[in-house]
C-alpha cells in the first residue's frame, strides 16, 4: 500500500525541517559563544588623556570604557570649554584591537600630530590631538594593547 510508504516520507519531510531548524539553532549557539568569548578576551586597554580643563589648569583623566566623546557639550566625557570646539567634536573608540580617533564633522576640525583628520584613524601612545585650538595628549598602556593585538 502507498499509505505507509508515504507516511515514512512525511515523517522524513517533517524531520528534515526540524533538522534544518536544529542546525540553525546550533549555529546560532556557536556563533553566540564565539562572540562572547571574543568580547571577554577583548578588554579595553586603559587610556590616559591630558588636556587643559575649565580653569585653564592641566587635567589628566583615565578611561577604561571603549568609547570617549570629546566636545563642548557638558555630557561629553572630555568636556572642552573653548569656542573653537564644537558641541560633539570628536570621538575616541576602541575596536578591532585598536584605539580610533574620528572627527564628528566639527566646525574647526581635528588634527592628529599636526595633520588634519579626514577618516577614522588609529592612534598610538604619545600622540597629540588638537580639537580646534585645544591640545590633548594621549598615553596608552602599551603592554595591554600588544597582548590584545596578538590575541586577535
Amino acid at each position, binding site marked *: 500500500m*502507498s499509505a505507509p510508504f508515504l507516511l515514512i516520507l512525511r515523517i522524513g519531510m517533517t524531520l528534515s525541517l526540524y533538522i534544518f531548524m536544529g542546525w540553525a539553532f546550533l549555529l546560532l549557539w556557536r556563533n553566540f559563544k564565539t562572540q562572547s568569548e571574543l568580547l571577554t578576551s577583548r578588554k579595553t586597554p586603559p587610556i590616559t588623556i591630558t588636556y587643559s580643563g575649565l580653569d585653564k589648569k592641566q587635567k589628566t583623566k583615565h578611561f577604561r570604557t571603549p568609547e570617549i566623546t570629546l566636545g563642548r557639550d557638558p555630557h561629553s566625557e572630555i568636556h572642552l570649554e573653548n569656542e573653537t570646539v564644537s558641541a560633539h567634536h570628536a570621538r575616541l573608540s576602541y575596536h*578591532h584591537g585598536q584605539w580610533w580617533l574620528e572627527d564628528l564633522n566639527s566646525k574647526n576640525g581635528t588634527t592628529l600630530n599636526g595633520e588634519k583628520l579626514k577618516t577614522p584613524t588609529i592612534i598610538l601612545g604619545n600622540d597629540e590631538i588638537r580639537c580646534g585650538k585645544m591640545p590633548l595628549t594621549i598615553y596608552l598602556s602599551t603592554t595591554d594593547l600588544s597582548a590584545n593585538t596578538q590575541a586577535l
Partner: protein
Amino acid sequence: MDISSKKHLFPFSTLFLGLYSLILSLSPALRARSWDVDYLYAHWLGFFTWLFLNWLAEKHLDAKIPDRDPYLFPLASLFSGWGLLTIWRLLPNFGLRQSLWLALSVTVMLLGLRWRKIFITLRRYKYILLSSGLLLTALTLIFGANPLDIEPRLWFNFGGIYLQPSELLKLLLVIYLSAYLADRVPIRNKFFPLIFPTLFLGGIALLLLVVQRDLGTASILVMLYASILYIATGRKRVLLGNAIILLAIGFFGYHFSQTIHTRLAIWLSPWDDPSGFGYQIIQSLMAIANGGLWGRGAGIGSPLFVPVAHSDFIFTAIAEETGLAGTLGLLTLFGIFLSRSMIIALRAPNRFQRILASGLTAYLGIQSLLIIGGNLRLLPLTGVTLPFISYGGSSLLTSYLALLLLLKISNESEGSTPPPFLWSTRPYHLLTAILLIGLITSALLNGWWAVVRGPDLLTRSDNPRRAQADFYVPRGNILDRNNAEINITTGESGNYLREYLYPELSSVVGYTNSVYGQAGIESSLDGYLRGLDGNPATLVWWNNLLYGQPPNGLNLRLSLDIGLQEDVDERLSKHKGAVVLVNAESGEILVMASHPTFDANEFDDSLLNEEDSPLLNRATQGRYPLHQTLDTLFDAPPVQIRLPFAESEEGFVSPLEMAMVAAALSNEGISPAPRLALAVDTSQSGWVILPALGETASLFSAADAEQLIATFSSDEEAYWQILSTQEDEENLTWLLAGTPANWSGTPLALAILLEENNPVLAEEIAQALLSSAP
C-alpha cells in the same frame, strides 16, 4: 564570521523540499489507494528552478558579500521554496508563473549586489523614490486592473503580467523614513517639526490606499510608520499614539464604513453566518483542524476548499498539509529571521542603515503577522501576502529587495567602522519582542484550532471534507431483517456512490447527499455507517493518520421486513398517510411507511418546496390530533387511563407513538421500547445488537388491556381493531389494531393514519398485515 556554517543549512532545506515534491508526486496513489494512477510531475520544474537559483545565488553572494549574515538567505530561500511548491500543489498554472517571478526576483537581487553605492543613492534620492512610488500607486486609480476583474483594482496589467505598486510603496516608504530620520534625528529638534514632512507624505500614501480600498496595505503603512518613528526617536508616545489611532479607526470604521464594519463583524462573530461572510475564515479554521498535529501530507489535504488558498490563505494550506508540526517550524524560522535582521540593524555601520534594517524587519514582521493572524482569526482578515511565500510577483520581488538591503547592510557592518552610538536599545528590544510575541501567539492559536478544537470543527456539517471522504471510503450498507439490501454503496474508490435500492423508504431510512446533507437512519447512525463508531479506536486513529479519512463503514441491519413493507407501500402509494407495524413484544418495527415519499436517487431542489412534504417521515415526525372517539376511549369507564402523551402534546401524536400504544394493548399493557436499527456488523465481534431507542413502559394493567381489546375484537378476524374517522376539516382516519392477548404466534400491533376519510383502505391494510400473521 564563519561563512562555512551557512553551507550546512542548504542540504536540509533541499532534502525538505525534495521530500515535499516526492510526496506530492505520489499523492494521487494515496488518494485512490492504488498504485495505478497518474502521478504528478510538473512541480519538479519548480523544485529544480529553486535549486538552480539557490546554487546561483549562493555563488554570487559568496563572491560579492562574503561577510553577510549567514542565516538570512538560507531562511528566505527555504520560505520561497516552500511557498513555490505549495503554489504548484494548489494551482500548477500559478506555480509556473511564480517560478518565473522567483527567477526574476533572485536575478534582481544578484544584480543589486553589484550596485556599490546603493545606500548613498537611496539616501540621496529619498524624495524622488517615494514620490514615484506614490505616483505609481495613484495611477492605479486611473489604469488599475484586477486579475480577477473585480474591485479593488490595485494592479497594472502589462499584457497579462500584473504588478501591484502598493507592494513597492511599502518598501519605498521604509527607505524614505529611514533616510529622513537618520539625517534629522541627531539634531534633536522639536518633535512635531521633525515629523511634519513624514506625516504629510505618509498621509498622502495612506489616503491613496484608503481611496483604493487597499485596507490591508493601509494598516501595514500606519504600523510601519509608527515602528520606524519609534525606533528613530525612541519615544514611546509614538507607539501609544499609533495604538490609539488604530483603535479609533477601528471604532469609527465599525460604525461608519461598510467595508471595515464587515471585516470586523466577520472577525468577531464568523459563526453567525458560516455559509456567507464567515465562510472563508471558517473554511480556513477547518482546514487547519484537518491538518491536525502531523498534517495530511503534500497533495493529500483539501486546502482548495478555502477561497484564494494560494495567496491570502497560503498559511492555512501549509497548516493543512504539514500540520501543526510544519507551521511551528515555519513560525520558528520566521522568528529566527526577524531576530537576525534586528541584530543586523543593531550592528549596522551607520544610522541610516540601522533604521533601514529595523524598518525592513518591521515591514516583513508586521505583514507576516497580519496575514498569519488573519488566517487564524487572531486578527481581522486583511488581504495582504505572506512575504516570500504567498503567490504574487510584486510581493515576492519586494521581499527579495528587502532581503538584498538586509544582506548588504549585514555585510558592511563587518567593516572597519564601528557601529554608531545607540542612545537606547529599548526600542529595538520592544519591537523585536512585539513581533516574537505575535509569532508565539499565532503558534498557540494554531495549536488550539488544530488540536483542541479540531475534532469539533471537523464534525461540523459544513465541512466539505466529510462529503469528499464519502467518495473515497465505502459507506456501510443498510440491510433489512433478512439481509435484503436497502441503501448500499456502489462504484470504486474515488467514485463511491450511495444507491437506494428501495426508494419508497427514502423518507424513513433517509439519505446521505454531498449537497443536501443527511436524514433519517443515514444521519442518526452516521457514526457506524462512516466507520467512526464501532471500529477500534486505533484503527480510526491509524486511518486518520494515513489518509485523513475514517476507515470503511460498517453495515447496519434494520428490523424492517421488505416483503411486508412492499405490500404496504403498494397499497398506500396513491394516498397520504403512514403505517407502522411493530412486534408488540420486542418493539421491533417491521413496517414503517410514509407517503407521499420520494426517490433519494434523484434528489433535487424541487423536493424541498413540494407542497406534500415528501421529505417528511410522517410515521415519526408527523403530529396528528386524536379524534374525540379515540381520545375518550381511554378515558371512559372501565379503563380510565389517559395516554402518556395526550396531555403533554396537547393531543397531538405520531403514528409511531400510537403503534406503541397498540403494542401495549396486545402485550398485557406493556409498551416495549421501539427498535428500528437492530445490529451493526463490526469487524471484530461480528453482529453487535444496538440499543433500543426508548424505554419499556407499562401503560395499562394487563386486565385493563385485555378488557379493552376484548371490546374491539370481532368475530370475523382473529385480531382486535379500533377504527376512528371524523369528518371535519382535518379528515383523518386512524386505525389501531393488534393480535389478541392469548395469541400463540408473534404478537403484532399496528397503527395506520390516513390524511383522508378512508376507513376501507385502512381496514384493508390491517387485514393484509394481521390476517396473515404467523
